[in-house]
């Protein structure tokens, strides 16, 4: 099972209320994924340096101490927000370098996301509880992805929860299961893509990160993914300024898209879209199998 949702704002009003809509959509997908929930929120882009989202098992973690050390190493480090087990850290450093530094010096922490725009939050437990814990309703931003997980191929842990980000500002959520992820993971590792779990979805995210690194556009990367990724999937993918949806050619996993003048939304089932303002008058359609759908900020 699993439920996925995505919301891409096309108006300032939706950007201001993005978190509230995300929480409503996620709650509708609770029955499809009661084990854990997670979101990727694209908001507050940094103009210089980078932004990391970090996770600690210890909810009383001393983020200021980490910030001090990060500041010593790179300079300009701040912790603008802490939500439950996650903290957002800004630092005057290249995002990839900062990520490697945190992994090396703070092995007890997990880097959930790195880039200049993305923030990822995920935790085990029911989606409604997760939304409360992380005060999702407060979030403003340009676009979001959400996932509710019914675990099938790996354990129910915070780390194994979705979304996965294996490239800067890149995020992927997945409903389905891949069958060639072990072989593909080894191939990608040889090309320098790092993985931190045994999860199949992380391999799909890593594959896209690799394709984008090699110069492909989001659309090209997904089109090549149709050939290279074997299994059942509906993917929703986000980059700093883009949002995409792809279903495998057999299309066993559900997806519905809807668009109004104010937003583009994707969900596993329509009732997660029905909670959005103006949904009754939205253009609603089922994405065709094996067809890449992409929206980009500049083009909207």
């Amino acid at each position, binding site marked *: 099972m699993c439920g996925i949702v995505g919301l891409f704002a096309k108006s300032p009003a939706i950007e201001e209320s993005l978190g509230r809509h995300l929480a409503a959509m996620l709650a509708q997908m609770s029955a499809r994924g009661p084990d854990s929930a997670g979101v990727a929120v694209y908001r507050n882009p940094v103009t210089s340096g980078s932004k990391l989202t970090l996770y600690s098992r210890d909810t009383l973690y001393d983020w200021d101490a980490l910030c001090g050390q990060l500041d010593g190493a790179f300079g300009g480090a701040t912790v603008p927000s802490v939500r439950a087990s996650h903290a957002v850290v800004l630092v005057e450093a290249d995002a990839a370098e900062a990520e490697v530094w945190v992994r090396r010096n703070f092995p007890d922490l997990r880097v959930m996301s790195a880039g200049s725009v993305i923030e990822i939050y995920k935790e085990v437990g029911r989606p409604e509880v997760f939304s409360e814990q992380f005060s999702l309703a407060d979030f403003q931003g340009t676009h979001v992805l959400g996932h509710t997980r019914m675990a099938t191929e790996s354990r129910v842990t915070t780390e194994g929860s979705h979304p996965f980000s294996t490239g800067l500002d890149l995020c992927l959520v997945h409903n389905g299961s891949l069958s060639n992820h072990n072989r593909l993971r080894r191939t990608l590792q040889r090309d320098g893509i790092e993985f931190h779990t045994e999860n199949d979805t992380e391999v799909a995210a890593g594959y896209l990160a690799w394709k984008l690194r090699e110069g492909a556009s989001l659309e090209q990367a997904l089109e090549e993914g149709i050939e290279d990724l074997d299994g059942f999937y509906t993917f929703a993918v986000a980059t700093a300024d883009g949002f995409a949806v792809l279903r495998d050619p057999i299309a066993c996993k559900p997806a519905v898209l809807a668009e109004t003048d104010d937003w583009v939304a994707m969900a596993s089932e*329509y009732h997660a879209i029905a909670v959005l303002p103006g949904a009754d008058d939205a253009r609603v359609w089922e994405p065709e199998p094996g067809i890449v759908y992409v929206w980009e900020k500049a083009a909207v």
Partner: protein
Amino acid sequence: MAAGTASGTAVEVVDLATTPLRELNQRLHDLAGGKEGPTHWRVLNPRGAHAVACGLDAEIDIEIDGHVGYYCAGMNQLANVCVHGSASTGLAENMMSGTVVIEGSVSQSAGASAHGGLLVVHGDAAARCGISMKGVDIVVRGSVGHLSGFMAQSGSLVVCGDAGEALGDSLYEARIYVRGEIAGLGADCVEKELRAEHVAQVRGLLERAGFDDVDPSSFRRYGSARELYSFKIDNAY
């Protein structure tokens, strides 16, 4: 809750924004076996709910204002269900009789395993439309997705638009009529001659569906070549 124009033709209005879905379905189930009750229903605000008007067994008319989720009108007997919107997976699955009309489009497996009745789709039907159908008639104004009519046993599938990959794969005695392009025929599915009796059958189905601007002689007919393992008498146990 009831609002009507004259006694006997009253329309029972149920708003799913305020009434639990189970209450609606229970009230509809209570009409089974010819029990007295409203014969014309209108359902408001379905908002993608699953199993709306599922398991009916009564001669009633139901109109649903909005999009519905999975398995709408599943196992339908006798009832006429009209959705003013689109429907998700498994619409009219295992329908036995009656009529189900969708004014929008439907997701996959519409009319799956249905034994009888008429399913009309004004928009498109996604993958696996009429999969394993066993006697239902399905008329689609738009196109159907891949693997439509897979293992279809009897009944008719009329597609005014195009059909996706593997149409009619492994089909038995169902008849498939397509007016537009076909991405590919499935195993053992072949084109067959469109004779006068077939044109008459398509005309009748289009009339019942209310599509009077479609020429019944403009379709092509597809059926089973009967070459697969299951058709060989020596393979019978």
